[in-house]
């Protein structure tokens, strides 16, 4: 059976998304921003609801993607700002601030969605797909859009490779050298928001963090230097995205997010066992005489 055009486009879109998530995720992981991605994903839900409401009010089709994604990006960024504001008070530690923001924004989103089910245009928009992801529900135009955003994120990571690497390894040394680490961090945050938002519909906002964290975590177990880790992380992300989308196309009841994350988890497990930079391999190296 030859897959339909739509299926192929969705596969390509999910593969590109995975590539972008793995590439941006590589730097996010090294900069200690993995949980920030989780917070962005969850904080996007009220934005999705607001976007649908705005679209309905403006007479646009409620399931058309741009208003939903703009809303998602807006509240995602708001969530990050709230997190930083809480952290700056000095009374709530950063990990607690992430937990507070993540759950509070998500709860607000769930509450809004339940209310919005009463609005007929919104009720039909299938917003619940944004929670766990349903690549099969993607239309070709949506997949193209997500793929384009993803390609842009990968390009940005490559262009910013050296500043990002310097900020990730030793931010203070980078500052002493005159690198504007604040601007680099902001760029990384922007890329994270873009990847999270682009991946919402396909992977779902609950699990998008896994697509950002699992590929680089697995890649690190194979590569001892950043260029190799980055390339592998992007490749692993693409593979996870493709596997998840293919599984979801084959078993329509399986949310794509679950398929993507399970693929990533298997990859990480295998890497832990056989990767040349895995803990086992390193113990073996340490045992050899130098």
């Amino acid at each position, binding site marked *: 059976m030859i897959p339909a055009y739509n299926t192929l486009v969705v596969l390509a879109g999910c593969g590109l998304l995975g590539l972008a998530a793995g590439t941006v995720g590589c730097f996010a992981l090294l900069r200690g921003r993995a949980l920030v991605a989780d917070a962005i994903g969850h904080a996007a839900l009220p934005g999705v609801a607001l976007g649908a409401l705005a679209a309905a009010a403006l007479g646009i089709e409620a399931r058309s993607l741009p208003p939903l994604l703009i809303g998602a990006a807006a509240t995602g960024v708001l969530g990050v700002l709230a997190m930083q504001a809480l952290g700056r008070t000095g009374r709530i530690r950063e990990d607690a601030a992430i937990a507070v923001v993540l759950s509070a924004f998500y709860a607000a989103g769930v509450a809004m969605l339940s209310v919005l089910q009463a609005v007929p245009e919104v009720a039909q928009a299938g917003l619940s797909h944004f929670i766990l992801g349903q690549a099969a529900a993607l239309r070709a135009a949506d997949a193209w859009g997500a793929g384009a955003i993803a390609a842009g994120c990968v390009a940005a990571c490559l262009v910013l490779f050296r500043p990002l690497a310097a900020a990730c*390894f030793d931010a203070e040394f980078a500052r002493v050298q005159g690198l504007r680490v604040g601007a680099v961090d902001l760029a990384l945050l922007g890329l994270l928001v873009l990847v999270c938002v682009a991946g919402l519909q396909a992977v779902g906002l609950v699990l998008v963090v896994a697509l950002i964290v699992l590929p680089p975590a697995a890649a690190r177990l194979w590569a001892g*230097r950043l260029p190799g880790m980055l390339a592998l992380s992007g490749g692993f992300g693409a593979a996870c995205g493709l596997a998840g989308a293919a599984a979801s196309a084959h078993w329509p009841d399986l949310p794509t997010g679950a398929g993507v994350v399970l693929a990533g988890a298997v990859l990480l497990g295998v890497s832990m066992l056989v990767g040349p930079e895995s803990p086992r391999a390193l113990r073996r190296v340490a045992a050899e005489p130098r």
Partner: protein
Amino acid sequence: MRASVPPIETTGLTVAYGPNPAVEDVTWTAAPGLTAIVGPNGAGKSTLLRAILGLIPVRGGSVRILGEAPAAMRGRVGWLPQRAAVDWDFPASALDVVAMAGTRRARWFGPLPRAEREAARAALAEVGMADYADRQIGRLSGGQQQRVFLARALAQDAQLVLMDEPFAAVDAATESAIVAILRRLGAEGRSVVAVHHDLATVRDYFDQVLLLNRRVVAAGPMDTAFTAETVAAAYGGKLLRFGAGETAVLAEAG
């Protein structure tokens, strides 16, 4: 030659993390050459260096570096942080780390310029780490990691290098490598300001000293500033054996 310009001048510098200042009203002029910052734990030595570099906000006072405002000197001051400051599991080889000294001069993407790569290799060779250039940094010993950091500071090719406890927990080979480099930098007319813990070696390794205990206790050439009296004053009179190293001087004033 700018050897007559003081590498560091601070005026009334005060830094506080909470209500209590960690560094208070430090007015100090470092002379060119090799300077040790010495004082008990919690005296604010690292804080002072980090404030001079602009890495932490100051509550009051001002800093001049080589006669200029710190912002103008960004990228022209060498920096050797404490080894614990970074994640040594980071996917980088020793050469990758040293090459980060050229981040500002290199393009953002693409291979490192040949000159930068050569400079990084030369710096690694100078600290005796040429054979370890391609090894992942997590697989180096603590002393080797410190020498990689030292090579990175050298590769910055700066007129002034600040070092935060370069001799902390290093092996003999690393200690002698650091001393050789201090002497080379001094002979070239460059300045080094280093936090130093071992009272026994201060005189051998450095030209001047700043004795610090939140405030300036004494500063200047060894003969006048580094005496039994000034050291005892810096360590709150609790100094048990002068010249015996850190273990004897953990007690603090107040």
